[in-house]
């Protein structure tokens, strides 16, 4: 497939936004049970603002993918059958919830809504946070399923696609949260860095699993099934046009194999190896670590995710390409 930069930015930006929100609410939940020191509401408010900005940027990027963005509202109608439609519904819902969560922390409007049998209070932000968490995971599933549900794109048609979207998005979000915590909430910095490390390692495992799986895939379709002639040797002489068409532009990445392989190593290095190194250094340095280190980890990881997403699209080999092999 031809990687569209609109979609590369959309999926990476909202992935990081979701991850950041999950990180914030994880801290809040731990703090509510006294497992972490309570944090200032500024930390949550600032984090939510950044998450909302990431989500808005992602949404903005997505419009560049549409031929007719002015009709985008229509895309919320087919949620019964289309994962794309479901994403279109869940994304603004999650965005709104993140916004409300941020506002509640910002204004300090955080009344106790209920009390647990144990006597622990349930605040408004806890309720908003739980709904937001559910929506964040739902959004990962929707985004992943948009690709995983296409059965002929076999590189994508695997549960690993959904798992990767979830883990890689969360990893970048936790890295960002850790970088934020350096100045805003130093007390939870090691906690967030630790989780960023763990999720990045899990992401490395699942992304490697999908790379290994895809390398072993045998195509199901062939020229024989494409035109229905059972002869071992068939060559296309002409695809019926010379100047190219939508079919030659949309479904081919147009890069060499070497380029593809370089991007693969590049993203493995920048999404996983370098951030893991930086995060570990940051963790071992403790609260005294230079804040720039963790920020750098996030920036490198985000750059790596752009490459990872580019590769994700480029690697998928659409069966329609069988019909477009020769210009004459």
């Amino acid at each position: 497939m031809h990687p569209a930069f609109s979609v590369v930015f959309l999926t990476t930006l909202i992935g990081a936004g979701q991850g950041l929100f999950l990180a914030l609410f994880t801290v809040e939940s731990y703090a509510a049970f006294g497992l972490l020191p309570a944090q200032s509401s500024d930390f949550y408010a600032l984090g939510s603002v950044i998450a909302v900005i990431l989500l808005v940027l992602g949404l903005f990027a997505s419009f560049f993918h549409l031929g007719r963005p002015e009709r985008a509202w229509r895309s919320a109608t087919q949620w019964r059958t289309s994962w794309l439609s479901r994403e279109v519904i869940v994304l603004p819902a999650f965005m709104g919830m993140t916004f409300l969560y941020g506002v509640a922390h910002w204004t300090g409007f955080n009344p106790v809504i209920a009390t647990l049998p144990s006597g622990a209070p349930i605040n408004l932000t806890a309720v908003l946070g739980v709904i937001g968490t559910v929506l964040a995971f739902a959004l990962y599933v929707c985004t992943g399923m948009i690709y995983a549900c296409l059965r002929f794109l076999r590189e994508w048609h695997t549960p690993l696609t959904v798992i990767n979207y979830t883990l890689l998005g969360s990893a970048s979000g936790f890295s960002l949260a850790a970088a934020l915590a350096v100045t805003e909430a130093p007390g939870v910095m090691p906690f967030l860095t630790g989780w960023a490390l763990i999720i990045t390692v899990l992401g490395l495992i699942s992304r490697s699993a999908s790379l290994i799986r895809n390398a072993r895939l045998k195509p199901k379709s062939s020229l024989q099934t494409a035109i229905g002639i059972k002869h071992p040797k068939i060559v296309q002489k002409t695809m019926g046009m010379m100047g190219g068409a939508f079919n030659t532009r949309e479904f081919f990445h147009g890069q060499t194999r070497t380029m593809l392989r370089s991007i693969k190593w590049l993203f493995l290095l920048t999404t996983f190896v370098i951030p893991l190194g930086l995060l570990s250094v940051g963790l071992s340095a403790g609260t005294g670590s230079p804040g720039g280190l963790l920020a750098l980890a996030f920036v490198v990881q985000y750059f790596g995710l752009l490459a990872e997403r580019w590769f994700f699209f480029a690697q998928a080999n659409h069966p329609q390409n069988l019909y477009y092999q020769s210009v004459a």
Partner: protein
Amino acid sequence: MTQLALVIDLNVCVGCHACVTNCKEWNTSGEAGPMVDQNPYGKDPTGTFFNRVQTFEVGEFPNTETVHFPKSCLHCEDPPCVPVCPTGASYKRKEDGIVLVDYEKCIGCKYCSWACPYGARELDEQQKVMKKCTLCVDRIYDTTMTEEERRPACVRACPTSARLFGDIHDPHSSVSRAIRYAHGYQLMPEWGTNPANHYLPRRKTKLRIREDELERADNPLKIDSQLPKPGKAEPSLDDVTSW
């Protein structure tokens, strides 16, 4: 239930692109139009087409055959392109099984084209909506046309009658009979899309000779000759004399 479809005879198609041209001509001025071109007279002319004729070489030199292969939307009975559409612009008609795009609803997200394994959908670069074969839905029901004209433009244009059009769910239709007798098949059956369009394979050319053609029916000498009648292999007057 009706399922309209094309049946394309690869044994007959000569790859002349008449169907491509007539399809473009009819549809660019019809309901689905315009089908815009970019650089039509420039270096890399490109544009929207519903139908393409491709050419394949089968076998190894010198034993090769050239196969011309027209390709358009196959109006799948289980179309994977329809459920993925987020707007409902892509739909399959219940009454005749034609898969259509509503150009007023389509947002040009291209998701349906990703979901079609055959590459049958093309985004119109000017209108920015998805386009594909409509089976000339604006022709085949047009009662101001004669019965003969109420067929898709490509079918009307084909000089070799390689394209048949009809209801494949009616076992007595010409298309159903053609599929049955000439072993019509579907493309990429491995994806379970159940395409409505079928292709008729290359066939060995058979010379069919009837019994009466073996006898020189116009040879009066043999008919009038003495009984018992001489065998079919016996020389007749034509073989032994030169006029």
